[in-house]
């Protein structure tokens, strides 16, 4: 009985209308996103890699590409003046709910692409991040200072936080393309690539993909040995150092001398 009621034409139309009204995705343009390469292997000669992100969007839309890690807590030492004279590490600050890597690229100045509300809702830009991050001292009260700006400066120096405006190329047919140098400082792990298209300050579509950075070959083997067989790793490091030291000492055996 209840099944028949649900299937009557009026109920179906009503449900469809509710779905359309409730789901913003339905009103958004189809956006695609393809990242090449999707897997970045860290080899012995690794020093970052060019990564291309491209896809289709509605013609005339602006495009924002955000590459980030999942928000987490970051524990960092902070420096302050000890005794009013010396700059020292005084304690630890915890930056809660913030990605360790955040790389934002846009096709135009970000404040012209999206309204402040849209930026906040989609965590676009440093101001939006500032609104969600919570900063605490590990012990005691939070010391005075603009610690979010310090955090940004620290991450920018590491080249894993950046906002670059105008580097996403958009063509007349709606295709977009971003080529960036993947920073070697970005640690192994999975990175989310989010593409947001916008018009008149509003989001018109979204798509996402991912990039995985992982160690391979000798780099992976050494990392595994150092993690899982620490004693062997330590002994190996000593033996190799001794062998090289004595071997070179022997090569130069005629060259030594007293002072």
């Amino acid at each position, binding site marked *: 009985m209840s099944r028949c009621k649900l299937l009557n034409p009026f109920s179906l139309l009503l449900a469809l209308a509710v779905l359309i009204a409730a789901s913003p995705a339905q009103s958004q343009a189809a956006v695609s996103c393809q990242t090449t390469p999707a897997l970045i292997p860290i080899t012995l000669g690794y020093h970052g890699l060019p990564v291309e992100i491209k896809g289709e969007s509605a013609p005339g839309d602006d495009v924002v590409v955000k590459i980030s890690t999942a928000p987490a807590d970051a524990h*960092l030492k902070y420096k302050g003046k000890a005794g009013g004279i010396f700059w020292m590490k005084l304690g630890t600050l915890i930056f809660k709910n913030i990605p360790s890597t955040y790389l934002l690229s846009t096709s135009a100045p970000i404040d012209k692409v999206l309204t402040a509300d849209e930026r906040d809702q989609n965590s676009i830009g440093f101001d939006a991040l500032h609104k969600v991050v919570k900063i605490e001292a590990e012990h005691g009260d939070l010391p005075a200072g603009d610690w979010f700006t310090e955090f940004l400066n620290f991450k920018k120096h590491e080249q894993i936080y950046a906002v670059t405006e105008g580097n996403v190329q958009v063509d007349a047919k709606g295709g977009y393309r971003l080529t960036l140098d993947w920073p070697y400082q970005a640690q192994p792990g999975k990175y989310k690539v989010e593409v947001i298209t916008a018009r008149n300050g509003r989001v018109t579509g979204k798509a996402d993909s991912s990039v995985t950075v992982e160690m391979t070959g000798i780099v992976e083997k050494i990392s595994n040995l150092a993690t899982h067989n620490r004693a062997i790793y330590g002994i190996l490091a000593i033996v190799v150092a001794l062998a090289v030291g004595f071997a070179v000492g022997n090569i130069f055996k005629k060259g*030594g001398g007293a002072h």
Partner: protein
Amino acid sequence: MYMYLPIALTSVNYLLVIALGLSVGLLSGLFGVGGGFLMTPLLMMIGIPPTIAAATDANQIVAASASGMFSHWRLGNVDYKMGIYLLLGGFLGGAAGVQAIKLLSATGGADFLIKMTYVVMLGLVGSFMFVESLVALKKNKGAAKKQTTASDAKKGGLFSMLPMQTHFDKSGVTFSALVPFVLGGFVGVLAAIMGVGGGFLMVPVMIYMLRMPMHVVVGTSLFQILFTCIEVTFLQAYYNRTVDFLLAILLLLGSVFGAQIGTMLGKKLHGDQLKILLSIIVLAVTVKMVLDIVLQPANLLSYAGGH
């Protein structure tokens, strides 16, 4: 040109790292110091995290000091007896220093202690060596040599009154075995606090307090540094996973050759010339450290670990 370091999790220009190793290895062969007080800050400047820089430096010093010590051993410049007493004291002192740092870390005072120890010790050692060497250089060479003879060392009043009097053949000095043991322990405490091998402290102690001849000082210092750094390398790899093997290999490729070149160069220089050169380097590092703690740093945040 680049190599990725699996423990430091960063990529470096390997030619630059080899050149760093060569420069610091040269100091090692020339002065008998491990060079940790120079290498660790230099590695941090090229983007290596502080804890990895300090631990990996200990690993490369194993190679450099083995290479340098091998040369000095062939020349008969290593006083093993003295080295063992210094080493025993150094191990005990090092363990005490590590415990002191643990206690101070819990109360938040470790960073202050470490930096102040660095500045005071480097400043004192550097200034003393500089002035002393300058005075000695002005005098005639005969007078300068005289201070390192066995007869002078025997006149060392207090040392000769202590028990366990021992003759150290290679160094040509006689005093209580407690002297190198206690001095080694003192250097060990400071070395642990400062996170370095202690060569730059041990060398002046051997020259000015133990009155050992300069050529034996360098060989014996390298002997002591070698074993200290073997211990540190293993402990850091085992407990902290902070030894980057690839970084160490790059550094030691440079440092072992640097150590040999340093040993050859040292042969051509007079002891006081060596001392004055070392004192200038130590004083330069002191000035840099003072500026680092007095001037506001470019960034007020850093990763945990290191000094």
